[in-house]
């Protein structure tokens, strides 16, 4: 068993990272904030996959790599496997986690800059809550994109959170997109 830290440490860093980029640095440019958060995730995924594939043989094909992401890799990060994996056999995969750990653990407070209005804050509109949650999801999307990219499988990764606390990640291998697609509803 490798070194461990309290889960609240990673929760705290993620919340502050997203808050800093969304509120302090790119307050009026959520697209830029999203790209930075995704880029941070990308580096983490790139490095983690190097470590988590160290003791194992190479994958025979892309499907085997994706299954690894869904099982072993997801377990290392979230202590469970992906619940459902679907594909349209035409370059798109959908990974579904019915109870995405970071959505259930992380108490997402959009007004975290203002300490007073925390747990008892006025009612958040559903749109606002989705927006803030989406920002957090750019990070795990980046992790998955970074991991797959380092395995030689570039793809675009986006999240669908229309059914919280379930989270669906869409992996798109069709176009070689480098930028995260918009996750906010148009």
């Amino acid at each position, binding site marked *: 068993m490798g070194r461990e830290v309290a889960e609240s440490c990673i929760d705290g860093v993620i919340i502050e990272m997203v808050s800093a980029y969304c509120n302090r640095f790119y307050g009026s440019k959520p697209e830029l904030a999203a790209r930075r958060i995704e880029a941070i995730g990308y580096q983490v995924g790139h490095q983690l*996959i*190097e470590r988590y*594939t*160290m003791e*194992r*043989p*190479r994958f*025979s094909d892309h499907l085997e790599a994706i299954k690894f992401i869904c099982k072993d890799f997801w377990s290392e990060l979230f202590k469970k496997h992906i619940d459902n994996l679907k594909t349209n056999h035409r370059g798109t995969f959908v990974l579904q986690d019915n109870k995405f750990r970071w959505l259930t653990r992380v108490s997402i407070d959009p007004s975290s800059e203002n300490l007073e209005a925390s747990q008892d804050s006025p009612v958040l509109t559903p749109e606002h809550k989705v927006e803030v949650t989406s920002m957090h999801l750019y990070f795990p999307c980046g992790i998955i994109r970074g991991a797959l990219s*380092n*395995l030689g499988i570039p793809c675009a990764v986006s999240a669908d959170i229309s059914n919280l606390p379930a989270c669906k990640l869409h992996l798109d291998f069709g176009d070689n997109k480098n930028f995260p697609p918009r996750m906010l509803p148009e």
Partner: protein
Amino acid sequence: MIVCVAVVGHQNNPLYLQSFTAADDALKLHHIIHCSLDVVDERVNNPKKSGPTLNETFLGMLYPTENYKVYGYLTNTKVKFLMVTTDLEVKDADVRSFFRKFHAAFVDAVSNPFHVPGKKITSKIFAERISGIVKSFGSVTAG
């Protein structure tokens, strides 16, 4: 004795190259490394259909020259490790063990947040660790 080790990226870009021998051999070693890459590509793209070795990271001996033997290893992230040795009798277990330790050192080096993927590894700690692994090569099973 190990005379040279190399780390090469998936686009055959050099990430790390270290000789442990006199300078005038260096050019020859670089040439050997270069040729080895072709052998690796060939091995990986035209694998012998012998099941168990198909996806192994350890590629075994790539080719012998007059004075050297070259061993290769390919990670899941398509990074190649190459080792050139003058030893005539090399134990399989020793080489595997060498590459396992080498791989661990590599993973730590690329886990440095300031390392740029695809660029050369500049870590002093990595260089020291590799020296140590090279020095202790074969010592476990040495007769």
